[in-house]
C-alpha cells in the first residue's frame, strides 16, 4: 500500500474540485492577466492531482504518463503566454485584460 492510498480517494476528489473551482473563479473574476494565468495553472494541476490519485488507486501507470504530458504542455503554454503578456505590457503599460478591447467589432 503506497503512501497515496493512506488517504481515502474522496479526499483527493474533494481537494481537486476545490482547486479547480478556485481556478475557474479566478479566471472569471480576476482582471490581471498574470493572475488569470496562475488560475489556469491551478486548474491544470487540480486535474493532475486527480490523475495521479486514480493512477495509484487503480494501479495503472497511464494516468501518470498523462500527467507528464500535461506538465510539458503547460510549460510550453506558459512560455508562449508570458511572451504574449510581455508584448501586451509593452504596448499598453498594463496587464489588465479589460484594456485589451481595441479590436472589438
Amino acid at each position, binding site marked *: 500500500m503506497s503512501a497515496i492510498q493512506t488517504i481515502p480517494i474522496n479526499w483527493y476528489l474533494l481537494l481537486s474540485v476545490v482547486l479547480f473551482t478556485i481556478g475557474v473563479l479566478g479566471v472569471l473574476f480576476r482582471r490581471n492577466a498574470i493572475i488569470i494565468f496562475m488560475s489556469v495553472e491551478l486548474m491544470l494541476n487540480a486535474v493532475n492531482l486527480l490523475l495521479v490519485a486514480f493512477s495509484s488507486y487503480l494501479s495503472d501507470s497511464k494516468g501518470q504518463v498523462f500527467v507528464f504530458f500535461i506538465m510539458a504542455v503547460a510549460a510550453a503554454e506558459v512560455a508562449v503566454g508570458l511572451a504574449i503578456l510581455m508584448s501586451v505590457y509593452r504596448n499598453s503599460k498594463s496587464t489588465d485584460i479589460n484594456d485589451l*478591447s481595441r479590436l472589438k467589432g
Partner: protein
Amino acid sequence: MIKLIWLVPLLPLIGFLIIGLFGKKLSKSLVGIIGSGVVLGAFGVSLGIFLQLAEGAEQSTTIDLFNWISAGKLSIPFSFLVDPLSSLFLLIITGIGFLIHLYSTGYMHDDEGFSRFFAYLNLFIFFMLLLVLGSNYLIMFVGWEGVGLCSYLLIGFWFKNTAYNNAAKKAFIMNRIGDLGFLLGIVLIYVTFGSISYHDVFEQAKSLATGTPVLTAITLLLFVGAMGKSAQLPLYTWLPDAMAGPTPVSALIHAATMVTAGIYMIARSNILYTLSPDTMAVVAVIGVCTALFAATIGLAQNDIKKVLAYSTVSQLGYMFLALGVGAYTGAVFHVMTHAFFKALLFLGAGSVIHAMSGEQDIRKMGGLKKYIPITHFTFLIGTLAISGFPGFSGFFSKDEILAHAYEHNKVLWLVGVLTAGMTTFYMFRLYFLTFKNTFRGTHEQEHHLHESPKSMTIPLVVLAILSLVGGLVGIPEVLGGHHFLEEFLAPVFDDSHFRLVHHLSHETEYILMGVAISVMALAIYFAYKTYVTDKKLPAAEGDELQPVHKLVYRKYMIDELYEAVITKPLNFIGEGLHKVVDNQIVDGLVNSCGYVVNGVSGVIRKAQTGNIGFYVFVMVISIVLILFTQLF
C-alpha cells in the same frame, strides 16, 4: 488532282497566317507576292480539278479529311465535296480572287494597312472556299460565318471613320439576322433527316412527296439565310452601305463572290427546293421584287460605287428569280458572268476613283475617256455585258433566266424585262456621265488625272476579255450553240431537272430575245439622248427634287423606315429593360444580398465586446452546458 483538294483552302489560310503574323516585318512587295501567290496556287489546283471533271472524271467525290465532331449519334466528318458545282465556284473564287489581289497591290499601295488588308483578303478566300467545298451544312455554315466576319473586317477597314464602322456593324447585324434563319434550317434538317451531310439529306429527301410541310419550313429558313447574305428584300440595306470598304473589297466580296453564297446554297440544295413549290414561288417573287426595287434606286444615285452596289442587289435578285423558277443552271451561269462583269465594273470604278484622287460623285466627272483610255474601254465592255448586249456574257445568262421566267409566269418575265431595261439605262447613265462630254471636276483634279498602274489595268483587261467571251460556255440551243455549262452541271441538278422539264418553241425564244434586245436598245438610246445629246446633269445637292425622284433618291426611305420601325422600338425596349430589369431587379437582387449580410452582421458583431472576461465566462458556461447535456 482531286486528291489535292485540301490544298485549295489551305494555301490562302497559310497566306493569312504568314501575312497576319509577320506582315509588319515583311516588305510590301513580299506581302503582295505571298498574298496573290497563294491564291494563284489555289487557282492552279482548282483549274486542274475543273479540267479533270470536264473530261468526265468521277462526278461527285467526297474527300474525308478527319473526324471533326462525333458525339452520341451525331457524327460530322470534316470532308470536302468535289463536284461540278463546287469546282465551278472554286474557279470563280480563286480566279477572280487572284485578279483582285493583283489589282489591290496597286490600289492599296500607299495604304498603311497594306499587310492587314492582304491578311483579311486571304482569310476571306479561305472561308469562301470552305463554304463552297464543305460536304455538309455545318462546314458550309462555318464558311458562311467566316465570310461574314471578313466582310465586317473589310468594310470597316478604315476603322478611324465612324461612318465606315457603322456600315460594318450594319452589315454584320443584318447578316446575323439571316444567319439565325440558316442555323434554324440546319437544325431542322438534322431533326428531320438525322444527318446534315448533303448526300444523306438529298437521298432521303427524294423519297418525300412534293410540298411536304417540313421541307417547306426547311427551305424557307435556309432562304432567310440567303436573304441576309445575298442582300435580298428586306435584308438588303447593308450591301449599299458596304461600299465603305476599299473598292477591291467591294468588287471581290460585295459583288463577285460572297453575296453569291446564298445562290450557291440554294443551288446546292436544289432538290429540297424543287420539292417545295411554295418556297420556290416565294424565292421567285422576292427575287424579282428585289431586282426591280434596287434597279429603280440605282436610277437616281450619283455615287459611282452606290450605283454599282444597287445594280449588284438587282442582279442578285435576278439570280433568285432564276432559282425560283427552277432554272438552277441559269442562276449559276449568271453568278459566273456577273462575277466577271461586276468585278470588272467595280475595279474600273476603283480605277476611276484612283484617277480622280478619291472623288466618287459622277456629277463631278465627265470626259474621262481621253485621260484613262484602258479603264474607259474595259468599263464600256462591262457596261455592255451587264446590259445584255448581244454576244456579251450577260446576254446569254440573262436570256436564259428570262426564258425560264416566261415559261413559268408571264408577269415575272415582264418585270424581269423591265428591270433589264432599267439596268441598261442606269449603267449607260453612269458610263456617259463618267466618260463622255467634258470634265466637270476642279482644276487640281484635272491636273492629277492619270491612268492606273499596270497591276491595276492588267486585271481590268483580263476581266474584260472574260466578260466578252464568258457567255460562250452557255450558248442556247436555239442559236445553234452548245450549252456546255448545262451539260457540265447536269449531274448536280439531275434530280431536279426531270421534275422541271421546260419546252419553249424556238419562235417564242426568238421573240423573247428580240423583246429583250429592243428594250435594251431603247434604254441606251434614252440614256444617250438625256446625258450626251442634251447634256443633262443629275440635280445638284440641295436642289428641290420632284416628289417621286426625291423618294427614289432617298432610297425609298427604307433606312429611315427600319430606323423608325425596328431600331427605335428596340432601343426603347432596351432602354426600358435597362432601367427596370437590369437596374431594379438584377442589381436589386445583388445589392440586397449585400444589405442582408451587412444587417445581420451588424447585429451579431455586438457580441464581440472585446471583454475577455465575458468571453471566458461564455466559454465556461458553454462547457458546463455541453457536459450537462452529454452526461445527463
